[in-house]
């Protein structure tokens, strides 16, 4: 048994005798799940006991393994391969010696899961149990039953629970039903509604007690709270069948509350996604964030829809069981009326229909946000393409500029070499040391003529160099490129037109529309003796020519305006487009 670790000295006011505890919850199960569950538990074999775990073998090549996880020891009590299974289970802790916590577990195809235990002893006391200590036992059973069933559920079911209970299904709340034969102090149920010690103790185990009721036709009494029901009866057997139905509906009630909370949280997440989309023009990461949220929410909504299906089937089946319940016993009748169970049963189906509406709305919203993301992503892609085109043009211009710079440097080198040549000449002949020339300059106004000759020579050489630079620059502009936005529908002749072309590159972009790009070369007379490369982009879905580019290598007597005009005339002549 576990050690006692209570830090406080407890003051107990209420004691219960001969206790049976039922803890109920709803877990999505269907017929297929229960068949698989029965197979997993080896129900149909002779050996009906085994250790179960949620451990996954990630090293199939290895012969041995060690396991650190908690194991569930299972012993089959009763089963029907298609409908239900009942087994006793206990968690095998290595750290807790003499563990004597063994509970029965009932699971059926309706998703009704009930854990049952008869309490034998608390703190070596088997006569009567204080509610103070019982609360600790129940919380222990609620936590341990979550661990225990987790080892037996499929990965899919664990994922569903993970979704509904916000990633911490191990702490999920369950509905507790306690049957006791006696209660001390033995007073009317109403007198426990004292607003003080007695009520406080009941609240510990029932979480806010709302109904304190004495049965009119017997000494039975019950106390009903938000998360628990305590029935005091000398003949608890008469309540067994009703308890199994209450367990389903109140377990489902808790599940549905969490389901709704999760659904509203998903709405909030979608709202966050929309906020990111609004920031799409400012924040470059916003689209990725929105996409990530959307993908998470979409996956969750798929599971939420599947959960609805499970709940709907479960409620339909349980309603039949509710109809078949024998309600003749006056105490059963009174309990049903006091707990308003008819109302609870009717509302279970209504709540599922309501949830269906909200989930449908959520699906629509996801589709809307997805459309926004796609349109924004397309916008960003267009911008990126434009910027890429600009940068290619800029790089092209830089390349040409670099060529011009290279030409200028070449000229400078020529000038420099000329200067060196003159220096060499001066070195050889000296500064005007040529006697006849020096004599001629010194006589009369010859000096002015000499200056004129020098200046003329300077301008002649300068002009020559300028012409040379221009020529070299013109040579460096080795191609012309023109982009023509055509934006016209093409006719039926388009395919024939292409057949005559020797297509060297064909690119296809398949999205909502099929976009094709064709590239070919031409060098006939209409291009004024130039060799050209034509690229045509067409929307094949809408029979639309989007644009064309024409590249001319080493252009001869042709301008971009002429290129545009020639191409348009060409397409019209070939009857590919019309006026």
């Amino acid at each position, binding site marked *: 048994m576990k050690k006692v670790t209570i830090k406080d000295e407890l003051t107990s006011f209420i004691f219960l005798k001969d206790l049976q505890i039922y803890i109920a919850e709803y877990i999505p199960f269907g017929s297929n799940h229960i068949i698989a569950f029965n197979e997993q538990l080896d129900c149909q074999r002779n050996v009906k006991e085994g250790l179960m775990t949620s451990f996954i073998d990630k090293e199939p090549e290895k012969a041995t393994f060690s396991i650190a996880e908690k194991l569930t020891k299972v012993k089959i009590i009763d089963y029907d391969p298609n409908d239900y299974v009942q087994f006793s289970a206990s968690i095998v802790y290595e750290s807790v010696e003499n563990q004597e916590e063994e509970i029965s577990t009932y699971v059926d195809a309706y998703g009704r899961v009930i854990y049952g235990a008869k309490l034998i002893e608390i703190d070596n006391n088997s006569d009567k149990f204080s509610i103070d200590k019982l609360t600790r*036992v129940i919380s222990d059973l609620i*936590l341990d039953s979550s661990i225990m069933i987790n080892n037996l559920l499929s990965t899919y079911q664990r994922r569903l629970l993970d979704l509904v209970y916000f990633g911490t299904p191990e*702490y999920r*709340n369950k509905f507790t039903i306690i049957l006791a034969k006696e209660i001390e102090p033995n007073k009317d149920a109403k007198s426990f509604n004292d607003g003080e010690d007695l009520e*406080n103790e009941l609240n510990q185990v029932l979480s806010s007690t709302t109904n304190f009721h004495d049965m009119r036709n017997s000494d039975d009494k019950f106390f009903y709270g938000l998360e628990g029901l305590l029935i005091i009866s000398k003949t608890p057997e008469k309540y067994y069948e009703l308890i199994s139905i209450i367990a389903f509906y109140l377990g489902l009630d808790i599940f549905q509350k969490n389901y709704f909370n999760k659904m509203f949280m998903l709405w909030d997440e979608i709202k966050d996604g929309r906020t990111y989309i609004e920031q799409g023009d400012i924040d470059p990461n916003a689209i990725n964030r929105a996409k990530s949220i959307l993908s998470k929410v979409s996956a969750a909504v798929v599971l939420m829809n599947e959960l609805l299906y499970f709940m709907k089937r479960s409620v339909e089946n349980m309603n039949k069981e509710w109809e078949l319940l024998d309600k003749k016993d006056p105490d059963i009748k009174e309990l049903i009326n006091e707990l308003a169970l008819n109302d609870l049963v009717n509302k279970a189906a209504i709540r599922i229909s309501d949830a269906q509406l909200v989930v449908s709305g959520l699906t629509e919203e996801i589709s809307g946000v997805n459309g926004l993301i796609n349109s924004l992503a397309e916008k960003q892609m267009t911008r990126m393409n434009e910027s890429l085109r600009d940068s290619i043009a800029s790089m092209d211009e830089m390349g040409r500029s670099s060529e011009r710079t290279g030409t200028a440097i070449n000229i400078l080198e020529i000038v420099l070499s000329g200067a060196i040549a003159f220096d060499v000449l001066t070195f050889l002949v000296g500064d005007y040391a040529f006697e006849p020339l020096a004599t001629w300059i010194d006589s009369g106004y010859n000096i002015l003529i000499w200056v004129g000759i020098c200046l003329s020579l300077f301008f002649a050489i300068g002009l020559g160099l300028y012409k040379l630079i221009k020529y070299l620059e013109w040579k460096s502009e080795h191609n012309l490129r023109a982009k023509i936005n055509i934006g016209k529908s093409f006719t039926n002749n388009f395919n024939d037109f292409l057949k005559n072309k020797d297509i060297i590159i064909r690119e296809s972009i398949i999205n909502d529309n099929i976009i094709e790009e064709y590239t070919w070369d031409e060098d006939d007379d209409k291009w004024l003796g130039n060799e050209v490369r034509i690229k045509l982009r067409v929307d094949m879905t809408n029979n639309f020519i989007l644009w064309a580019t024409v590249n001319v290598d080493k252009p001869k007597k042709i301008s971009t305006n002429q290129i545009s005009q020639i191409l348009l005339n060409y397409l019209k002549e070939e009857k590919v487009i019309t006026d």
Partner: protein
Amino acid sequence: MTTQMKRLLYLIAEYTKIGDQYGVLSIKDLPLKALIYYGIINKIFDYDYAPLSIMYMDNRRFLNVSQEGEDDLNDLRDLGLLNKIRIATRSHTFIYAYSLTNNGIKYLKEIKSDDKIAVDSKLKCKCGRTYEIKVLLSGIYFTCSTCNVNINSQITDIEDVAYKCVPLIIKTQLTG
């Protein structure tokens, strides 16, 4: 007004004041539960406590909660000394917070210094300041940055009792 109620009122007053001005702030339910529990295990409050599954940081957790403490909070509200305020959370559940009413502030003068000293001794730092209360996934902590103090309230440490139980046969219409 019992001694427990007076101490509880004074505790809330101390944690919701700014400077010398009482009743300015509201204290959330969860930190208050942690203070009450810490007060119980340090003998400031004569209450019982038991594990209860409640919402904790948008999830469920079992915490040591005193129903008597909760009852006294309701009684203080009935007496017009406390306000209870409801706040929505991101997970679409609600949490509550408490603040002093004007009558509550006036009533503080009636509380004996012995009770105030008892509360101050364990539920405030030695430097005289109230603790900064941090609600983390690992638990609820009382800290004082001036004195470099960090105390775990232990409200999430659920205690075990020794018990023995045997399986029950569960009867439904399917089992017959």
